[in-house]
């Protein structure tokens, strides 16, 4: 079933989006209790990249023995490869034993750096961006938010996801949001099923794009990344996806300064929209928007085949 939510403060205003998105996703917990993910957009760090990566799955950590030694080795290997490629790490945070947040300076070929790090066994980069922080883990919104200290995160916009696993496993790798590798700051959350996944996946893999999981939703992130790579604007890339992706879907995309939504031609998956002069909120159910705006508000359902994009 899955629940998705997005919010954006217009005109460059910022707010405690960490707490806001946590509340929205907690209200959607009944749509998917398996895992929760956040893509939060903070203030852009000038000349600095934020790298979020994990070196193991949560399940491996709780059941394995040797893994505790291996995560230390893997982390050291990531450090070594960053150094080798000439990236200067300025900040290190350990969110959990297996997930980390690094801030680094780097002027070279980012895609090459990312590929080199991911070449390490068991290492997955969740996101790279100047404003994007992508956090996903098993558990409900308040658990994940508490574990990664997201309350109080100030920013302009965010998307989030609560997952009910249908097409692939319950693990962090198959959790949303998906980062649109290798593009800075682009992330996607999706509610639905894609039926032409393999045809599109094979086509995109031939073009050199990477898939980290077998989750059909990852295709949307890779698809958007490919369209942007071909020179499309976000809105036209999304409009095109309505025709080219088959299945039922409502998805949200965020970039460094934009938030977009798209709905399939059957309008099979829900989305409620609230828009005011300073704020836009989207969610699978109105209860999520009401969790941050308890007062009466005017909301509506966007129609089938609709694509909308807002700027921060």
């Amino acid at each position, binding site marked *: 079933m899955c629940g998705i939510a997005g919010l954006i403060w217009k005109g460059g205003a910022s707010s405690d989006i960490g707490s806001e998105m946590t509340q929205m996703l907690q209200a959607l917990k009944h749509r998917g209790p398996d895992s929760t993910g956040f893509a939060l957009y903070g203030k852009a760090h000038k000349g600095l990249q934020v790298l979020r990566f994990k070196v193991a799955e949560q399940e491996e950590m709780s059941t394995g023995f040797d893994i505790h030694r291996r995560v230390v080795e893997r982390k050291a290997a990531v450090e070594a490869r960053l150094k080798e490629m000439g990236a200067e790490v300025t900040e290190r945070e350990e969110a959990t034993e297996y997930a980390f947040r690094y801030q680094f300076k780097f002027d070279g070929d980012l895609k090459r750096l990312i590929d080199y790090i991911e070449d390490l066994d068991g290492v997955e980069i969740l996101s790279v961006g100047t404003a994007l922080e992508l956090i996903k883990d098993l558990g409900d919104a308040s658990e994940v938010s508490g574990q990664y200290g997201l309350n109080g995160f100030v920013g302009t916009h965010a998307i989030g996801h609560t997952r009910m696993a249908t097409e692939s496993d319950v693990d962090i790798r198959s959790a949303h949001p998906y980062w649109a590798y290798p593009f800075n700051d682009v992330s996607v959350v999706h509610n639905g099923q894609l039926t032409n996944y393999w045809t599109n996946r094979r086509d995109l893999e031939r073009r050199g794009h990477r898939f980290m999981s077998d989750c059909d939703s990852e295709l949307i992130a890779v698809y958007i990344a490919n369209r942007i790579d071909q020179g499309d604007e976000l809105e036209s890339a999304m409009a095109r996806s309505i025709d080219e992706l088959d299945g039922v879907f409502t998805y949200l995309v965020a970039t460094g300064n934009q938030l977009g939504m798209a709905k399939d031609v059957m309008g099979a998956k829900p989305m409620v929209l609230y828009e005011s002069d300073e704020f836009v909120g989207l969610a699978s159910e109105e*209860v999520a928007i009401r969790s941050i705006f308890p007062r009466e508000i005017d909301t*509506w359902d966007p129609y089938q085949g609709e694509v909308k994009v807002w700027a921060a």
Partner: protein
Amino acid sequence: MGSVTTSHDMGLHEEQLTGRTQQRFFSPTEEENFTYPWSYAVDFDKSSEFDAADMEISEINLKIRELMKSGHGTITVKNPRAKHSLGVGILNRLNLNFEGSLGYFGCGLNDGANIHISGRVGWSCAENMMAGTVVIEKNAGSLFGAAIRGGDLVCKGQAGGRVGIDQKGGTIIVGGSVGAFTGFMMQRGRMIILGDAGDNLGDSMYDGVIYVAGNIASLGVDCVETDMTDLDLRYLHGKLELYGMAAPNGVEKMVKLTSGKQLWNYDNLEPSEKKLVL
């Protein structure tokens, strides 16, 4: 069984069904069959209100029942805050007001209550309504009035896709536009749309009537335009006036759509089979 009179005994059926059947006929006396065992004698002048902001869904629905039990015929629920499944399964005469918005499945299975919602409703509002009225001041989500069998369902704003899917009776009125697949497999009843209609309007409808005031993106399979009669116009005038609504260019300019019945193939069946199908 002995003394039980069946509809067959009363001569209501000329034909005899052949083969195995699950049918059991009931005695059509009011005491036994036309009141629900849990229906309450309520007084409309006795009113009550409560704040639902911090209540769970089941608590709210139970509270409405408790109030009906104590004879309250007019109930106001404040701050429903878009919670799901509120006001479902009310099988009683009742004036029920929601001051705010409802989530999914609001007022489903309604049989007899007059419900007013000052906010918006989510998906599947008044699903399978049997009788009564549900009036929504703002917008409605998809599957608005799915499979309703009776009563009036009114949305003064716009509604999502698949409005009145599988409608089997009653009236659905939408003040604004509706999305794709509205009236899909409609079987009976009437739908009045004062705004635009999305793609595949009335797709595969068996029967029933759809009136549209705005533009129609496209008609579905076997949905055809028909001439408006004086009876239609009188009906539209009357219904819309009742809810303080009006067609933007007058009801005379509205389009009437019905089933072309080209998809019907019941005539290919044997007469005995035909009766089973219908």
